[in-house]
């Protein structure tokens, strides 16, 4: 009887804990799933931009033109600076990396490192001059020069009144011929959201 009472009270305590405690609940969701919580920029927007850019950049005329002009030699692209001129903190790397990955996966465009990663590579090469064996030491001056630079910008417009808000994002990516400064491709993705508080 005592045990029954004890079990009952234990179950009651556990139930009340489960009912009234403020335990955080975390559920794994698919990155492909669209979940809008605040109306701010989120992973779905980034994915939409990446999908659009990847699809258009590899299907545009600049690639065929380059291959024709250069006897089938694949173009070499470097990723330049991205400017976030929107009202939110957005890191373009989330979708630019997808575009870079598409370049490598499709084997149609060659990619070279730039910025801080390139600095690190050069520093590693410099270190090898003193520490690596002669047969494995990498030489300076043999890097691949990029033919094109990929640059981009994110802009936004916010229109709000009382509890309603429309947010418009425009993401632009541009591919420019480094030799001639000619813009050979512009990709854009426009996203508009209606938010009601």
């Amino acid at each position, binding site marked *: 009887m005592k045990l029954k009472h004890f079990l009952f009270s234990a179950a009651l305590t556990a139930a009340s804990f489960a009912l009234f405690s403020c335990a955080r609940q975390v559920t794994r969701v698919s990155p492909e799933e669209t979940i809008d919580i605040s109306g701010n920029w989120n992973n779905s927007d980034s994915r939409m931009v990446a999908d659009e850019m990847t699809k258009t950049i590899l299907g545009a005329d600049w690639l065929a033109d380059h291959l024709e002009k250069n006897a089938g030699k694949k173009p070499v692209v470097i990723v330049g*600076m991205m400017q*976030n*001129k*929107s*009202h939110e903190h957005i890191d373009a790397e989330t979708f630019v990396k997808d575009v870079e990955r598409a370049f490598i996966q499709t084997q149609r465009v060659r990619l070279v490192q*730039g*910025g801080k990663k390139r600095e690190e590579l050069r520093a590693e090469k410099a270190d090898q001059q003193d520490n690596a064996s002669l047969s494995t030491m990498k030489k300076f001056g043999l890097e691949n020069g990029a033919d094109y630079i990929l640059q981009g910008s994110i802009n936004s417009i916010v229109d*709000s009144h009382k509890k309603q808000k429309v947010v418009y994002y425009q993401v632009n990516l541009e591919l420019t011929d480094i030799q001639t400064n000619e813009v050979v491709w512009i990709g854009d993705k426009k996203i508009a959201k209606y938010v009601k508080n």
Partner: protein
Amino acid sequence: MNKKGIFHSFFLLLLSFLTVNAQEVKFSDQNPNFNRSLQRYAATSDSLLRYQGSTIQQTYKAYDWYQARAERKALRRERRHLERIANPSYNDWYYPSIGLGYYGYNNWGWSPYVGVGFNSRSFWY
């Protein structure tokens, strides 16, 4: 020095000149003043390429009516709180002091009346 020697030295001089100025006059259409630009950008390329591959945040603050109202409210509360602290007649330790029967801790210990209204002391005071 015979003629052959003079020719050899002239050839070597020409070769070294061409090697040093390898960038120069490669294309007939190239601007002859390109070296000026080359020198200018060679000196600053490190700083210009510092942010290559990264996102420069040049965000702006968009006007959001709903958010602006919340911010105004927060500012108002903050200002009132500071005013209350600055007021010498305010002795209550607890904030806010609105409402009857608010049980809290004041400078007389635990009490059902921490205060009534703004800038006031206890209910009976």
